[in-house]
């Protein structure tokens, strides 16, 4: 539906070529809306990575806005001319800046963004390990148990192994 508006020129060609017959012909397999489904698929995949500049946070693929339709048409033509995805993205970034990319480019200013998640895990993991090691040291060593206590402990541990054990 979002593509429908964008493929208006293609539609006109399609309609024109099918003639202005009022009554439909024999039922047949519906024709794809786009001129070139391969390019269309590539267009949509790329458009998912781009931002609609006039919308409230929608991708270029999902948007109904006029500018979005214009940009999709522009991209479609560039793909038909044989330009690569990277060339198309560079073209748009030259005109609209990094804002148009939903996948932020990796630069000095976005290093923290891309490294952040891994950093969080590493920092969190090390803090946890340090905390666990420290508490193991901080707690006093257990005195050795008597045989009777050991047997009791063994029984309790077996109970616990299968779940949470006796409730408090």
């Amino acid at each position, binding site marked *: 539906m979002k593509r429908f508006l964008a493929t208006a020129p293609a539609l006109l060609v399609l309609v024109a070529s099918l003639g202005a017959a009022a009554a439909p012909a024999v039922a047949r397999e519906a*024709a794809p809306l786009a001129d070139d489904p391969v390019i269309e698929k590539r267009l949509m995949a790329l458009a998912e990575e781009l931002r609609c500049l006039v919308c409230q946070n929608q991708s270029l693929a999902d948007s109904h806005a006029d500018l979005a339709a214009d940009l999709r048409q522009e991209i479609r033509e560039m793909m038909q001319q044989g330009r690569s995805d990277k060339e198309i993205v560079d073209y748009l970034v030259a005109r609209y800046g990094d804002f148009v990319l939903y996948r932020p480019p990796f630069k000095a200013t976005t290093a923290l963004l891309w490294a952040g998640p891994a950093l969080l895990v590493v920092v969190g993991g090390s803090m946890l390990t340090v905390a666990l090691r420290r*508490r193991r040291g901080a707690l006093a060593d257990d005195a050795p148990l008597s045989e009777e206590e050991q047997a009791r402990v063994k029984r309790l541990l077996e109970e616990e192994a299968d779940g*949470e054990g006796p409730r408090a």
Partner: protein
Amino acid sequence: MIPEIGHLALIIALCLALLQGVIPIWGAARGNAVWTAAARPLALGQFTFVALAFSCLVRSFVTDDFSVLYVANHANTALPLQYKVAGVWGGHEGSLLLWVFMLGLWTVAVAAFSRHLPDEMVARVIGVMGLIAVGFLSFMLFTSNPFERLLPAAMEGADLNPLLQDPGLVVHPPMLYMGYVGFSVAYAFSLAALMSGRLDATWARWSRPWTTAAWGVLTLGIALGSWWSYYELGWGGWWFWDPVENASFMPWLVGTALIHSLAVTEKRGGFKNWTVLLAIFAFSLSLLGTFLVRSGVLTSVHAFATDPERGVFILGFLAVVVGSSLALYAWRAPKVGLGGKFDLSSRESLLLTNNVLLVAAAGSVLLGTLYPLLLDALGLGKISVGPPYFNSVFVPLMVPLVFLIGIGPFARWKKTSFAELARRLKWALGAGVVAAVVLPLVLGRWTPLIALGILMAAWVAVTVGQNLLTRVRATPGGFGAVPNHYLGMELAHLGVAVVIVGVTLVTGLEQEKDVRMDVGDTATVGGYTFRFDGVTQVPGPNYESRMGTLTVFKGDQALRRLHPEKRIYRVQTMPMTEAAITSNLVRDLYVSLGEPVGAGAWSVRIYYKPFVSWIWSGAAIMALGGFLTLTDQRYRLLLGRRFRARARRGEAAGEAAR
């Protein structure tokens, strides 16, 4: 008259909330039994007036009172009744009233189900919740009054946004807000513990059911939102990493971590500081979400109408609430009391690793959501952070987490042997690998990502089954004697597996066709054939619809008719696409009308979405698991004891008064 009553009720509620926030906490600090005991009645009183205000607003909507500005902006005489009621929370002011209403509900619930708790603790908890209510009620009364008058009254309302005229509006926001607000209970418990200095395993045990209840409700709220956008927006997406969606997801992630951390603290008495901090974080993220949605700081399709004055107020409120709780934490977090000893390899460690991963995930979502703002504020340019970033960052964090779901329940408390775990779980892993190799091929398409998803889901499912079997065998009395809190846990984990199946298969195997259809034309998608039977004009209650008819065939057999619509709502003249969906257990068939392309032909988009309903069913199973743990015997025993405790306390108070 009614709006004025509502307005007055809010003012009275604010006064009561102020008393509720101050008196019980002061009383608990001073050991004053009368002031402490004032908590419950004050809470009940405040809620009564909030409920009164809420009913007044509902009445104004239902009676089409367009002399109330909020009603005039969001309703219409032709609006169906259920949307008149739901429209109460369709805009900023009314949704705040819903927030406060939910807060009142939770406060009354705490007041009712806390007879087994010491009075000073209850007083502090209710007091903190009262202070939060003060903030929201003031916000409403000073900047966002839902009862503001429009004089002279409008002849007709501006109608509710057509996107909101849907059953989704009736359930999603109430569930969501109930969840958001529910985390305030755990938050209040944490602050109460910090204030009293009593931070121990018992506190964890008391907090746990409240946290689980809020978490379960929030899970449902988020799932409903996802499902609603799926069928409503017309192109079959179900998660967009939109800032407002992220605002609900972050508290959920931290809430999940909190549930697991509470388990460690309750069982072993350790990591109390961390658990308290998590509880503060969870609710802080709820408040942060409230700020982000209403301040205009981020762009979102969900955002309410923004106003800088409101943004400043909420930010101030956020700063005070979170800032004071973090300051209280810094000041009062105990330095001693490490709790039980446990090994580096133990169930406790695995649960805490779960925490690291979940908090890292929440942190990543926060980072991605706020990064554009960060760079802009520093003058470093403007960027966008969208689904490509979130997907590439979130999935790698989830993989180890899901792996842990299988291991954790098998690990022993205090000390466990990884070698032994590996021995016990190798068959489960093998089964997962087999499923990952075979199932995608059977379903028609094998890619590494699909295989990974199947591996994770199968791993969880098999380990849950294996763990359940082991537990049942070891329990005298069999399945019936297995405690509910354990069954709930396994059910919730199983729900995760179901969600993973849904996400993996719909992302990997969905098919789509965008075609031009004349009457009689057919298109084949996902093994089903769709025949276009034309479009007719159909008037609706407050819209005009062009309704298409498509017949779905499997082979030669006609299955059913689908009726996608293109609606124009009369008042807002906004065109809306209503997709037609038919679901069964293993797939959704989704049809959307595009535009007429001449001579009775239309552009139509057809989707085959396998297993997409498993996403929301899985979430429902997770929530169900959570609720099941609440029905555990230990809580039922406690409730039974409440009556005896109340009687005993009544006697003691009688003694003290004499």
